């Protein structure tokens, strides 16, 4: 394999890995709140965390530019404070992957949390354990398979992220050209044999991920 392909492979794995770590932390927390708590605006939070699933990735990317661009609502302050902007760096690719993959984690984990028998949670409370300890020792371990399935789906989605990544990280060879972007560039310039390698690799890998996620979900049911 040549260096362009190797670079895109390594970058994609790195981006997907970082995005998935963030997805697990944020996704599990949000899913837990949605599954276990009643609060004002719950419906809104639910919709907000589902939107990236149905919006065109370019629209998600557009929002990210508005938020994190050098003149964006948040990006402006980050730039003023640090002189740095996330745009067109691999961090931006990770951010895009994070936002797009998050709904998968929230949906899957929420279903897993909701399927935990309420009596088990109450039993833990009556044994004197706090909500946090109950979450860590009872709820999360029982919902574990669902959370892992969600993480695998999120990783696969993060790995394949294209549209939002293109908007916020661009397609800079040797800097932000992830696998999907490299495939796009190779196909554009007619380098089919090199593109084939990545396409086949990508298809096999995603197939394996889905197989594992399915297995876990079935065992959950």
């Amino acid at each position, binding site marked *: 394999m040549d260096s362009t392909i190797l670079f895109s492979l390594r970058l994609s794995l790195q981006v997907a890995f970082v995005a998935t770590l963030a997805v697990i932390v944020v996704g599990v927390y949000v899913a837990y709140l949605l599954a276990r708590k009643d609060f004002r605006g719950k419906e809104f939070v639910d919709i907000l965390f589902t939107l990236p699933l149905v919006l065109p990735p370019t629209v998600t990317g557009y929002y990210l530019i508005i938020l994190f661009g050098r003149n964006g609502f948040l990006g402006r302050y980050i730039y003023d404070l640090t002189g740095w902007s996330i745009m067109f760096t691999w961090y931006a690719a990770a951010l895009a992957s994070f936002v797009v993959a998050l709904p998968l984690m929230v949906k899957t984990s929420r279903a897993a949390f909701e399927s935990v028998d309420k009596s*088990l949670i109450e039993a833990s409370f009556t044994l004197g*354990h706090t909500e946090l300890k109950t979450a860590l020792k009872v709820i999360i371990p029982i919902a574990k398979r669902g959370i892992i399935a969600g993480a695998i789906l999120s990783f696969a989605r993060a790995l394949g992220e294209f549209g939002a990544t293109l908007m916020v990280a661009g397609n800079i060879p040797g800097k932000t050209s992830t696998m999907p972007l490299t495939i796009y560039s190779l196909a554009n310039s007619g380098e089919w044999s090199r593109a084939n390698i990545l396409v086949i690799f990508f298809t096999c890998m995603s197939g394996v991920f889905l197989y594992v996620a399915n297995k876990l979900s079935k065992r959950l049911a």
Partner: protein
Amino acid sequence: MGFSLYLKKRLGNFLLDVSWEMDNELLVLFGPSGAGKSLTLQMIAGLIEPDEGFIYSGKRILFDRAKSIHIPPQQRSLGYVFQDRVAFPHMTVRENIAYGLRNGRKADREHKVNEMINLFHLEMIARKYPSEISGGQKQRVTLARALIGRPDALLLDEPFSALDTVLRTGMRALLRYIRQHFNTPIILVTHDIQEAYSMADKVVVYSSGRISQIGTPSEIFQDSSNLDADLHNLPPLTAPAPELVFP
């Protein structure tokens, strides 16, 4: 050491409105399904908040609407055993029992867990998971788990209803032993008349969210004229206790 309480709670069309007290004894909440027995127990445990009333455990206030006190279930120090044998599926028998302890040194904890395992004859299955043991064994595990922290009282919500007759008899003997050994008040919810009769020091009969009778088992079950209409609708006894007189 016992309980005194007054509870009022509206759930849709159902209104629970009860008041009773007990000493350090075994009290049976008796009555048909849907009379509010389990709801009462859940309120004592702090899992459901009453609309009005109070709950005292000895002199300790667990709940008092007038004083705006609602102690969360974690701090009530009550052992609660559920109807459907809820052992934690991802923990072994040993881990399930140990989970009933909140803190303490490791050696102390080990010692207490071993003590409960011996007391409840769980040595052979200590390393097994709940899915690998029988219903009666599961219920012994949840009893041990509820008791290991030495709660101020034991609340049992139809704990033996899913067991067969032979097992049930054994569990009743175990419960009498627990009552002696731990000297702790026990509130037992049941709709099994034999269980109520043979176990109780005192019986509170529930009917549609209200109390229809309070008394000793013999006062309640031996005078047929006292029996509430609901009791006549109970399924017939399979093996009546010898002393039991029932029309």
